[in-house]
């Protein structure tokens, strides 16, 4: 969705969120995009992402983008619907509506929004790989393939679209076709860990098991926290008769798979309740356990924005900052932890771990003493 987001970023708005009632948010989630008002045909045909925003939707869209950036997707929908009520079929709003539904894993609604965007602004076809992603997620691989091909005809340098096209072909049984597209994605973006893993899958399905090892191991090197490459590695090693290596890969897969399952569940909770504290704290712990630094960084940034913070979230945030080597943030979180939870033993224990991690042994010792007193 990188190119997709680039369109939204063109607006670069960051207006403060207006408070919404839970009823407004619930109503936004109940609204089918097909029921949004329609503009006269051709109204936005000449629209370009660089065009000035109409005054009528400027603030509303700004709030929608802010909500989206803060992962508050229901709030984003409220503002997007308001914008589209004022300016029916305004392409930027429709586009963001598609992206938001995709993030909410509502692929059917995402597809409807993207289709309307494309109908309103047919010149922006190159930005609609999100529509193909939606078709793919709905299991319509042939339609996904067709749309990826349309996108690539006008935007041939999108590694994501090549990867998506490869997946659509692979799912339809065309492993050779899939492999060629994954390789094209890798020419454009050699360190695309997911494309590497899928190219290994295609090679494995083609019976080129030995060759599959190279991209697979590179994928694991780039994203060691992802369970799927370990799953495939176990199959590849087993096929190559290396049962010991296969068993080691299975063990790692089991560990990471269990973590990923819980990550999905916690992320699912946050999709509709973005300010829930417990899932955030749990996600920090899970990403740290999987050594998923990218995921950890994302959740940490989100946790830091959130207030009020619980002891658990504050402690986990501190551990995350230490794991990421974010010294300045760690110091800030440690100070806050000490200030807010000075009478709680677990807080001092967390501080002791933090000071030890950053090499401040005297402070660590003081924290241990404080913990022992409580």
């Amino acid at each position, binding site marked *: 969705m990188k190119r997709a987001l680039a369109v939204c970023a063109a607006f670069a708005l960051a207006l403060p969120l207006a408070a919404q009632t839970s009823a407004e948010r619930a109503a936004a989630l109940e609204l089918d995009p097909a029921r949004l008002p329609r503009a006269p045909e051709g109204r936005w045909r000449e629209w370009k992402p660089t065009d000035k925003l109409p005054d009528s939707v400027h603030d509303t869209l700004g709030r929608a983008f802010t909500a989206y950036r803060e992962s508050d997707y229901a709030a984003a929908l409220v503002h997007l619907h308001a914008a589209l009520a004022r300016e029916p079929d305004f392409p930027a709003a429709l586009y963001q509506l598609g992206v938001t539904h995709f993030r909410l894993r509502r692929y*059917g609604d995402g597809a409807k929004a993207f289709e309307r965007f494309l109908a309103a602004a047919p010149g922006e076809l190159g930005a609609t790989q999100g529509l193909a992603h939606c078709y793919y997620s709905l299991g319509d691989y042939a339609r996904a393939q067709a749309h990826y091909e349309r996108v690539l005809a006008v935007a041939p340098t999108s590694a994501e679209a090549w990867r998506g096209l490869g997946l659509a072909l692979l799912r339809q049984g065309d492993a050779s076709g899939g492999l060629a597209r994954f390789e094209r994605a890798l020419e454009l973006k050699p360190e695309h860990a997911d494309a590497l893993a899928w190219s290994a*899958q295609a090679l494995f399905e083609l019976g080129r098991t030995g060759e599959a090892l190279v991209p697979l191991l590179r994928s694991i090197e780039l994203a060691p926290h992802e369970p799927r490459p370990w799953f495939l590695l176990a199959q590849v090693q087993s096929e190559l008769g290396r049962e010991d290596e296969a068993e080691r890969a299975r063990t790692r897969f089991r560990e990471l798979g269990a973590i990923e399952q819980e990550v999905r569940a916690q992320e699912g909770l946050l999709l509709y309740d973005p300010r829930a504290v417990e899932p955030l704290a749990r996600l920090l712990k899970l990403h740290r356990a999987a050594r998923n630094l990218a995921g950890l960084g994302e959740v940490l940034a989100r946790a830091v924005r959130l207030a009020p913070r619980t002891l658990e979230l504050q402690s986990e945030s501190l551990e995350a900052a230490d794991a990421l080597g974010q010294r300045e943030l760690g110091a800030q979180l440690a100070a806050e932890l000490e200030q807010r939870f000075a009478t709680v033993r677990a807080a001092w224990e967390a501080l002791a771990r933090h000071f030890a991690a950053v090499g401040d042994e005297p402070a660590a010792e003081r924290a241990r003493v404080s913990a022992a007193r409580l």
Partner: protein
Amino acid sequence: MPLASLCLALAQSPQFALDPPALAGVRTTCGARDKRFILEVNGGGLALADFDGDGDLDLVVVDGSTLERVARGEPGFPTRLFLNDGRGQFAAATEAWAIAPSRWGMGCAVGDVDGDGWLDLYVTHWGRDQLVRNRDGAGFELRELACLGDERRWGTSAAFLDFDRDGALDLAVANYLTFELGKVPPSGGDCRWKGHDVMCGPQGLAAEHDWLLRNTGEGSFVDATAAAKLAPASAAFALGCITLDYDRDGDTDLYVANDSTPNFLWDNQGDGTFREVGLQRGVSHDMNGKEQAGMGIAVGDINGDGREDLLVTNFSGENNALYLSRGARGFVERSGPAGIGGPSLTRLGWGTSLHDFDLDGRLDAFALNGHVYPQADKPGTDTSYAQPADFYRGLPEGRFAVEPLFEGAPRVLRASTVGDIDGDGDLDLVAVELDGPVLVLRNRARTSAAGEGAHWLRVELRSKSRNRFALGAQVTAVWSGGRRTAEVRTSGGFQSSVPPEAHFGLGSAEQVERIEVRWPSGRTSVLEQVGSNRLVRIEEPDA
């Protein structure tokens, strides 16, 4: 209508047609329609078998209960037998076949537990299960056993198998979870799906270990789960189970479909124990390495290589998984290339089966669908509560075309069983609509123009051991243009049981060149040049 159009219309008709008069007015209940608790979503199971020995298939319907009845301390609705008149019309059996109601019926399994040549019945429950003995084709009687569980555990599917090859049928029981009213929050609590309040579970509830009950002879059972090492480190939410000899080493293995947890493949070690090899053999997860929510299971030799393949129905957002056998090395998932991966992604599948329904010599399959959440009809779910049932018509090269199973509006379907209920040679289907009628679906293969030239063969076995119906035997049929191996089993689908026989569609072949039977005892039988369109009963030879 011109003849060509008529032929086209016939060819485009769904493979099955509803036959409401065949089982008029029979409905089941599984809680309330708003489904506030996970207990209320499975529905009851089905079994087709010849219980009265008159040569046709009778039907067992397992029924559930309501939370109000449970609260009042009343038993659930009874499991019922319907006798076949030989033409596929069912009527309630007499009082002699009545089964006293227990708490809340779920699934069932059929097997001859005492070796008397009559098929007995096992019924799983939320609560204690029931073992029902067949009194020489004259009626049922309950048999009390110590190992049938307590009031909190919840059994789903079950499978008879002779795991220790002592000639007596043992029993594997798939257990779901511990369900205690008052301890599970109703929908509207903290449980959400796609932004909607829904009932809770199975995540967050305690999974139950499955059971292996060993037949001590004469149909009495003891719990052999621990001794047979059938207990994994962590229990899983089991919904489906089926027997198969995946590695063709002569003993019966067991596959268990688990909800939201990896599926199990229990490899029979041949020494009275099992080893769980699902991950090693490629059938625990989908091709992405994601655990799915397995419900129903079908087994069949799709490509005629003598090894049975697996089809597992799953939750919405997950594809139904087709695992092609690679022999002892295990399986590889090929749902996408087979053409069933994508179309099943928005469905939530339950009952399923792999058989040659259109008698063209290739295996077909079906998936009965319907969501667990009534809230699936709300916006943004990418699915629906009532769903069309899908027929997967077998095509060359292991591909399937997805078609409507039968005409009519989408329904909330659950369990299924298959068998030739009208004796015309093709396999018919019985299905449970949740909180609705039990549906008899007549196969059109033999009545359609295309089916007139299609041939078939049914094979029944009679063993010398107490496993009289030879569950676990492998039957291989070879005909001009095709060959297929099928295990004689009664387990399959979801919470249901099928007749103990092998059925082969032969296309235009008028005879089978060779039938080879590998008996559970290890003996073999070979028949050559067997005419088609008949039921062949084969007796086990002497040693």
